[in-house]
């Protein structure tokens, strides 16, 4: 799955976010399912949509995924050697579709 700049322009320089599909690689290492297809509920504004629709800032010490509705942080992913930290406190819940469900 590819990710695209949300306004269609270049992200060089780190100023503009990508869409949530930019997290697919990191999340695939943690979960056995495609989490970008899961639905999140934003803890800040209760907006709900697919994880793939979050705004992701990739040019920082980790991945920061923000709600496109209120811009609160929903997911943070920090990669360290041999481990990944996943901070979900900005998401009330994740609804994960299962194959054959």
């Amino acid at each position, binding site marked *: 799955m590819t990710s695209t700049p949300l306004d269609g322009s270049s992200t060089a320089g*780190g100023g503009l976010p990508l869409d949530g599909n930019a997290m697919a690689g990191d999340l695939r290492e943690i979960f056995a399912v495609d989490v970008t297809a899961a639905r999140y509920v934003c803890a800040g504004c209760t907006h709900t949509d697919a994880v793939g629709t979050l705004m992701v800032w990739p040019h*920082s*010490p*980790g991945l*920061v995924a923000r709600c496109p509705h209120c811009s609160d*942080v929903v997911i943070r992913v920090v990669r*360290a050697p041999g481990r990944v930290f996943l*901070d979900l*406190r900005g998401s009330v819940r994740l609804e994960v579709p299962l194959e054959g469900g």
Partner: protein
Amino acid sequence: MGIISRGFGGRRRESVPGLPPGQYLTHDFPVLSAGPTPRIPLDRWRFTVTTETGEKTSWDWKEFQALPAEDVTVDIHCVTKWSKLGTTWRGVSIETLLENVDTVAEYSMVHSFGGYTTNVPLEDLLDGKAWIAYQFDGEDLHPEHGGPARLLIPHLYFWKSAKWVNGLQLMPEDEPGFWEAAGYHMYGDPWREQRYQGD
């Protein structure tokens, strides 16, 4: 010129004298950001120190500019492994800001426009170790690099040098900030490679 060329070391990612372990030298100034860049009009800028008892001291931009400023040249080290040597800044020392603040707190949380936070022990902000910087390389600090003003605490990894600062909260106990809560080290000493929790 000597017979033996020292070569151009800037493109080599190997140990360079003066660099902490695991760092490489860059001559650029990479922009790292965890969200949209806030544009803060100077007439809306304010910096507030809040003590552990809730007492507040604050400065608007004009008052802040009237404080005694210092020019400093320091090396900076980002946890993403780039280092930049001999950077020049102008700013107000935290010691100056805390001169008339009554506190027995040992920790602090730095707050920024946009909601970013990072925790720093109070003693690391004193004795000429940290500033609120508003100029870089002789020019007003660009919003991408944290302007109008950012924390400058060069002896810790650069995520501690919060951009777009608007407050300092003094605390009796240490608490994690934005990146510390998500897996980064609570202190972040580049010379001890304290990048992640448990390092």
